[in-house]
């Protein structure tokens, strides 16, 4: 059967089970777009800016576990995807980006809207392809999805010249298997190493687990809980590991690192065995890597061999999928208890006010998030931007299930929350999706609210309106002598803006309006913007300055333990 390149790509996407794509057309991708009406089973959502397409695909992928798909034209269309692709790459999110390219004969001639997109995205994709032979399209699409979702997931970009999209070639169906002889996504577990790990765990007096995004990706939360309960090991969850262990579990410790709870920092510092599972010893977790868990032997479980001893030197590495490792490890670990150690962490919890905040007349973001957590009971999907509100959300939300807390960790991409929440809502139409937005980040990507309105994607957007880039301002206050350069700004009237977009908007200035506003938002059938006018100057605590350690941890000077 002879088909055009565009038809072939769409046949392959259909065979791959793609039900939605986020994109924006342009000259070099037009043959693909003009073929879309032949494939009504694939929904296309027209975004307002291509970065929205990449981040929506990312939010869709993180919340569903499926590969997200985004489409852009050549040149500026493709480069607008870049921040979204980088965001997905840093947090191991499976997305496939399809970009139009100028016709083959014009490549390298600086043609109109030409850019070397495979070159530009080389360091921020897991892999990428420029398709110069139309007959290779089916295999390239197969490989792209296979690479994106297997092993340590990540973004894959496929750049397709316009004339490849138009050319008719014989299509023999979507390949069954990706022909990839130089790709080995998952290693087998080494039984001898697993045995050693089990012995280290059995002998530990003060063991601690740090679970990261790898556990969420592999949906290995059941096995993690089994290990923690069997050997009675307290579990710390990183920013991207939130939900990988039940937040209300007796062994749940909370978030570590720069804005982590004090008892997590102390537990890491005092532990004699640290088991990192699907996490990568990011500097925001470790602070000074030489002082991080300096009393502990370290076991690192990760699917990616390059993460072993990259940031923190470890004593034992188990390189494979976490399901395979824990599947082999859990039966070998002895039933054990560490009552003194668990009580010790609980005592630190009682002694430190990390999650406390003071009573104020005006609205504090922590107050709002604490109440939203109580209202949503861990059942909603919560997507955040980057900055103070993100850290407060990570501290105050509690999840019993994996992949409900969606946030840009590694890349810290402001504005992520608006398109990513849109993607999460599209992938989870029956779940309430809350976007926790900073007023700075929201202004970066707010046109996508219009995409939500147009497609009736009912995200509930909470804006923390403080008129500043809060986290940067906090650093200026603490490290730059309160010199607030370029962090204070004018915010628009978000309620009027909501109305202009054709969605519901509410402004909340009083504490007693907070919960009713949540109820109103949930009752409303479409997207809602809740503009919370919050105190402008408020800092996130605990705080360990970059490169610091337990010794440099600061708690909120305004609160005491009694308030907690």
């Amino acid at each position, binding site marked *: 059967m002879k088909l055009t390149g565009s038809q072939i790509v769409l046949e392959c996407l259909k065979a791959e089970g793609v039900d939605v794509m986020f994109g924006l057309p342009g000259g070099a991708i037009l043959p693909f777009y003009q073929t879309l009406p032949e494939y009504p089973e694939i929904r296309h959502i027209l975004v307002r800016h291509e970065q929205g397409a990449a981040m929506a695909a990312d939010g869709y992928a993180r919340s569903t*576990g499926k590969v997200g798909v985004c489409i852009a034209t050549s040149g500026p269309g493709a480069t607008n995807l870049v921040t979204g692709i980088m965001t997905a790459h840093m947090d191991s999110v*499976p997305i496939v980006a399809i970009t139009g390219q100028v016709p083959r004969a014009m490549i390298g001639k600086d043609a109109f809207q030409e850019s070397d997109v*495979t*070159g530009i995205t*080389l*360091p921020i994709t*897991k*892999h990428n392809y*420029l398709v110069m032979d139309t007959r290779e399209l089916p295999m390239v699409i197969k490989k792209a999805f*296979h*690479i994106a*979702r*297997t*092993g340590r*997931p990540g973004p894959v970009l496929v750049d397709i010249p316009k004339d490849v999209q138009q050319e008719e070639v014989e299509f023999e169906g979507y390949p069954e298997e*990706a022909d*990839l*002889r*130089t*790709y*080995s*996504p*998952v*290693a*087998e577990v080494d039984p001898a190493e697993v045995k050693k790990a089990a012995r280290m765990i059995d002998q530990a007096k003060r063991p601690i687990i740090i679970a990261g995004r790898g556990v969420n*990706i*592999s*949906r290995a939360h059941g096995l993690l809980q089994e290990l923690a309960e069997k050997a009675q090991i307290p579990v710390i969850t990183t920013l991207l590991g939130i939900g990988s262990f039940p937040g209300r579990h007796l062994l749940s410790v909370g978030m570590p690192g720069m804005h982590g709870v004090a008892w997590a920092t102390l537990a890491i510092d005092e532990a004699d065995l640290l088991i990192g599972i699907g996490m990568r010893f990011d500097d925001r977790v470790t602070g000074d890597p030489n002082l991080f868990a300096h009393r502990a032997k370290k076991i690192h479980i990760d699917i*990616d*061999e*390059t993460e*072993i*001893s*990259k940031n923190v030197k470890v004593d034992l590495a188990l*390189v494979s*999928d976490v399901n395979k490792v824990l599947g082999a490890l859990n039966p070998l670990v002895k039933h054990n208890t560490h009552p003194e150690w668990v009580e010790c962490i609980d005592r630190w919890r009682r002694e430190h006010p990390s999650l406390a905040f003071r009573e104020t007349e005006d609205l504090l973001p922590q107050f709002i998030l604490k109440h939203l957590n109580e209202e949503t009971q861990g059942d909603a999907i919560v997507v955040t931007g980057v900055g103070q509100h993100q850290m407060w959300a990570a501290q105050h939300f509690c999840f019993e299930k994996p992949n409900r807390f969606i946030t840009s960790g590694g890349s810290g991409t402001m504005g992520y929350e608006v398109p990513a929440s849109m993607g999460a809502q599209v992938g989870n139409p029956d779940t309430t999706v809350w976007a926790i937005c900073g007023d700075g980040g929201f202004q970066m990507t707010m046109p996508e609210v219009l995409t939500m309105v147009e497609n009736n994607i009912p995200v509930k957007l909470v804006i923390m309106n403080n008129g500043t880039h809060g986290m940067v301002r906090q650093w200026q206050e603490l490290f730059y002598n309160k010199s607030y350069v370029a962090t204070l700004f004018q915010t628009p009237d978000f309620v009027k803006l909501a109305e202009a977009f054709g969605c519901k908007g509410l402004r909340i200035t009083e504490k007693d309006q907070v919960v009713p506003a949540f109820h109103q938002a949930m009752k409303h059938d479409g997207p809602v913007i809740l503009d919370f006018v919050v105190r402008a100057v408020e800092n996130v605590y605990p705080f360990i300055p970059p490169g610091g350690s337990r010794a440099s941890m600061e708690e909120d000077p305004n609160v005491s333990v009694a308030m907690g």
Partner: protein
Amino acid sequence: MAVPRQILVALVEDKPGVLNRVAGLFRRRGFNIASLAVGHSETPNMSRMTIVVEGDEGVRQQAARQLRKLIGVMEVRDITDDAIVARELTLIKVKALPDNRSDIISIVEIFRGDIVDVEPDSMVIQATGDENKIEALHKMLKPFGVLEIMRTGQVAMVRGSAESTKNLSQVRPKFKDIGGV
């Protein structure tokens, strides 16, 4: 103290972009490449690279692992500590006038090099050997006036029929994909 050097040998797919991926990886991870030589291997459509990397033990481990992770790279061996044969080829254009030509020729003979071009006022010398020999030849020719030096960078191979002790792809074999997320 001299920066330690590691010799990595990689078998890679002979496809556009693979060299770019390797070079890009070393650049963005901040690994210094002392030399990189690449050419066809005994396997059709596969090329073999010899990469000499400068850096400590951490760099050595990271460079090999990061390289191995690249799609397009079939196999990586760290042969630094093996019994190896390592050679490079150099072309040296040196000033040579009738009165000192024979001096140059005798030096070239000691190094078992070849004169591959002679002009009235210059000669091109070709020599192969390990790094020390090439450096020594350059040193000996310097007083005559070296006009241009070309070096291929090292190519290296383990001696004998034994496989390298650090064939990383044997430590952790390439497994067929065993399923998704």
